[in-house]
């Protein structure tokens, strides 16, 4: 009885989570120019528009990908020394660095977005792609910082001692012991940052200053100026990207552990 109730509840939650996603996906099939559900006159024309023929969307997609990949790479690059410092040297400076890296992610992004808007305006970089990339790297650095820290904590410190007794300097131990064992966590952090950058809206809203649009910005514009089913295609692309990326993370890393489950239990 209670087992059945539990299953029903899980199913109901899954339905709740899926409902708007399904609706958006189905809306992409609309033949007309309005978003209707269920779709009328189903067609795949919108997909062609999104990926190939409509330059507004294809350019937005290219920018989104560029910003997501570049910012995730930079975020991971900055996160590594921060996480390593926190793990290896438990100093005030290390803690301060980690805290300042986590801050933008923890506080309301609109405040960070406003601040970045001022920062780039003062430095004359507002509305440029590099400014967008750096902004996202700063916003999402907390994610690789967290996953890499979890990865480093999973390394038995006796491994470093063992390496030292076998002649490894700190540098050698880092290369031969620490790095190989934390690769899954590094990749997970990179992908978390990538996916979130891909989906991020408000910070990009302020730092792009209408000079360019990413897919989320373009969708928001459409949302205000009347829906077009093409934007639903964007949503499908995003959902599929997320599922693919997190499945990869789950395949190559221990997702339950990354999310904080007790590693000793199976």
């Amino acid at each position, binding site marked *: 009885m209670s087992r059945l109730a539990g299953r029903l509840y899980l199913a109901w939650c899954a339905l709740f989570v899926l409902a708007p996603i399904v609706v958006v996906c189905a809306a992409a099939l609309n033949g007309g120019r309005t978003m209707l559900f269920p779709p009328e006159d189903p067609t795949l024309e919108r997909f062609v528009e999104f990926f190939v023929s409509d330059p507004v969307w294809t350019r937005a997609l290219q920018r989104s990908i560029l910003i997501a990949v570049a910012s995730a790479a930079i975020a991971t690059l900055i996160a590594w020394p921060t996480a390593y410092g926190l793990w290896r040297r438990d100093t005030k400076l290390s803690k301060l660095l980690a805290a300042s890296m986590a801050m933008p992610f923890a506080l309301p992004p609109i405040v960070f977005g406003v601040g970045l808007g001022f920062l780039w305006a003062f430095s004359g970089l507002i509305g440029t792609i590099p400014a967008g990339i750096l902004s996202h790297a700063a916003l999402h650095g907390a994610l690789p910082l967290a996953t890499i820290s979890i990865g480093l904590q999973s390394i038995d410190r006796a491994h470093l*001692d063992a390496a030292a*007794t076998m002649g490894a300097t700190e540098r050698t131990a880092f290369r031969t012991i620490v790095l190989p064992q934390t690769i899954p966590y590094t990749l997970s952090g990179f992908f978390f940052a990538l996916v979130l950058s891909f989906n991020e809206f408000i910070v990009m809203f302020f730092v792009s200053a209408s000079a360019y649009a990413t897919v989320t910005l373009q969708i928001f514009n459409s949302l205000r100026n009347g829906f077009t089913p093409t934007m639903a295609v964007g949503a499908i692309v995003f959902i599929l990207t997320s599922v693919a990326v997190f499945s990869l993370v789950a395949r190559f890393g221990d997702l339950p552990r990354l999310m904080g489950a007790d590693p000793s239990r199976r």
Partner: protein
Amino acid sequence: MSSGEPGPGAPQGDPADLRLWDVRKTFPGGAVAVESVDLRFPAGELTALLGPSGCGKTTLLRMIAGLESPSFGRIELGGEDITDLPAHKRRFGMVFQNFALFPHLTVAENVAYSLAIEGVAKPKRRARAEELLDLVQLPGYGARRIGELSGGQRQRVAIARALAQEPSVFLLDEPMSALDAKLREEMQVELRLLQQRLGITTVVVTHDQREAMTMADRIVVMSNGRAEQVGPPQEVYQRPANRFVAGFIGKANFLSGTADRGEVLLATGARLSVAPAANFRDGAPVQVACRPEWTFLASEPGANTLAGRVAFVRDIGQVREIHVETPAGPQVCELPFSSPARPRLGDAVHLFLPPELIRVFPAQDRAEAA
């Protein structure tokens, strides 16, 4: 040292010995792990650091390995000061408590790790790894993953890995603690045979006195950051230097009393004679220790006997333990299984403590006073 023998810190012995001079370790929080230790680890011998958990034995081992630097004192190997030499330059092979095998490397890569760091060519590394795996009786295991190995196999790999660099000193930190009881006994013998074959200076940290006695040429009994006694296993067992050692190595019955003209006057009024005579100031409070297997049943009261009543009997294989309640406190007497005496619960008995097997210590150890 509290033992009467010449201290191991005395300037003598083989020049290749590993020596500690007044080594101390205080952790940043102020906790004192090692108080002041002078020790000599003779070349080619196996020395066991034995003590209860928290006695400082592991910290001492880590200082020898160079993983921890002493707050004070000097470490020498072959007359050379190595106190400031970092672990990766000492390269003492070490086996860790949970083996610390690298999960991302194969067995062979683990074994050849130190050689890879040195830049030894790959074919040579592989050959050496095979050779070492043969040595620890794991031939053909090179390509396996660490996760596929059993506890005993992991230990063998850890040993092979530590020996790969042909270390001048071989260190083992509680090497048997991750193994089950039966395997532990086998590995103790095997490790000892291996060590003797290679003739390598070895230090083993353990809290298991049986393990220490099985493997060691010499035992260092530690407590509260100090070495309480140093000596061959039998000597430590037969002639414990103080009350702590007597209680920690094997079992002992303790009786309180005062010294009186070379004998001991118990609180109950009974007298115990001791041979040779105890060298204490008359009236000084002392503790008498006598091992259960050296405590005998006497048929009638006499010299050095205590009257009592049997409180509990247990047959445990080769011995029978008789727990006797006496006016001087509970005593245990171990009879060989073949002994015809079969006292039962509640029987009145007399315990005989042979003067030559009684040990007398000051009532308070320095360790206890601290």
